[in-house]
């Protein structure tokens, strides 16, 4: 079995000598990202609590860091980096397109229901 692994991450910025080394490198990166998330989650810096595109800035940071983590888990642990372009696109774009669509619809609707409760004639606080 020939198993060619692409050993560079961060668009070629970091190159590893072997696949095992790359795995440990990715683990260190994922651990750092998780640690940053936890620290931000505990201290919640005031400067990041500003509203931005309908959500707090801090929440956007969490979501972006999560997608970064998901990328490296899929690309390096699940070896998506080594699969053919067509398989990669089949799996990734299908999921991303459907998920974004679903999220948009449900969050839009959730916000609308909130407004109905707030401004309408439905009383909840009793």
């Amino acid at each position: 079995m020939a198993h060619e692994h692409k050993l560079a991450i961060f668009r070629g910025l970091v190159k590893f000598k072997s696949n095992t080394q790359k795995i440990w490198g990715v683990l260190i990166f994922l651990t750092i990202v998780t640690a940053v998330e936890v620290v931000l989650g505990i201290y919640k810096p005031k400067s990041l609590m500003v509203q931005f595109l309908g959500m707090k800035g801090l929440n956007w940071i969490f979501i972006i860091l999560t997608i970064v983590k998901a990328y490296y888990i899929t690309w390096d642990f699940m070896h998506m980096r080594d699969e053919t372009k067509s398989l990669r696109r089949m799996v990734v774009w299908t999921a991303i397109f459907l998920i974004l669509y679903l999220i948009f619809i449900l969050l839009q609707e959730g916000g609308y229901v909130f407004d109905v409760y707030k401004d309408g004639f439905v009383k909840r606080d009793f």
Partner: protein
Amino acid sequence: MSTTVVNTGTEGKTWGGGNKPLNASYGKMMMWFFIVSDALTFSGFLAAYGFSRFKFIDSWPIADEVFTHVPFFHGNYPMIYVAFMTFILIMSSVTMVLAVDAGHHLNKAKVTIYMFLTIIGGLIFVGSQAWEWGTFIKGDYGAIQTKGGNILQFVDTEGHRVALRDFTTVNEHSDRTAHERKNGLWFVDEGTLPTYTVEEVIHGFEAHDNVLVRTQIINDAGEKTVLSRGESLKLLKENGKAVVEGANLHVNEYGSPLFADFFFFITGFHGFHVFSGVVINIIIFFNVILGTYERRKNYEMVEKVGLYWHFVDLVWVFVFTFFYLV
């Protein structure tokens, strides 16, 4: 004249036939497609969670105040234990990918060790999840539910949480007992009664000047609103309906019952995936020991189960973000 087309003009091209355009075995490809569909299931759940949260955006529980416990330690440690669980799962993902790598080199001894470590990591995670559930169900401070289904919690004048047991005493003369099937209507029963009744809580509240009511509503500073002494008492007396201790599918002392419902459903569904992943890992582990893949000269089964295991980790990364961080 020959009518048979011999050349289609597409030989050598990716989709010209006689080729493997995706360059993946059947089993691996199907595992990927299963993962896509499972990812859509999970995102359905998480998006539904987002829907409910946006619906109650000004009164949703703050996760930092809900998950504050660490086993064997007393005190307030938000997020520490979940971060530990996340790390365990990422770590077991690493041992899994190391097992896959060892499989590529046909190194049976190493595959065995790494598979074993992966299984241990999975078991620690499931155990932690069970503990997390237990703590959440048992509850901590207790609260009063109003007629409208809202939750009233108690704080002292400095804003620290106060438990019901800190200011309420049981009225010894009360003779309210839980209704059981054998005592009355045989087809009706009720769950365990809370430790206190609403009247006892109101009595205790009147006797302690330093206790205030905290509502679910999140103010501009991102904190729950604390009422004045007068407002607190008025709200308790007019709207207080039931004492809530802990959380289940009907009530939730931390806030909206939907929060508990989604917590049980999503982490439960994920925990079930981890559990089945551990079972599948154990089966593959024994196959490795028995030398099945050694004889096959191919460890692709380890790779396939590895894909599933990494997917479980991937889902947890999102659950962690949307339940505990955001």
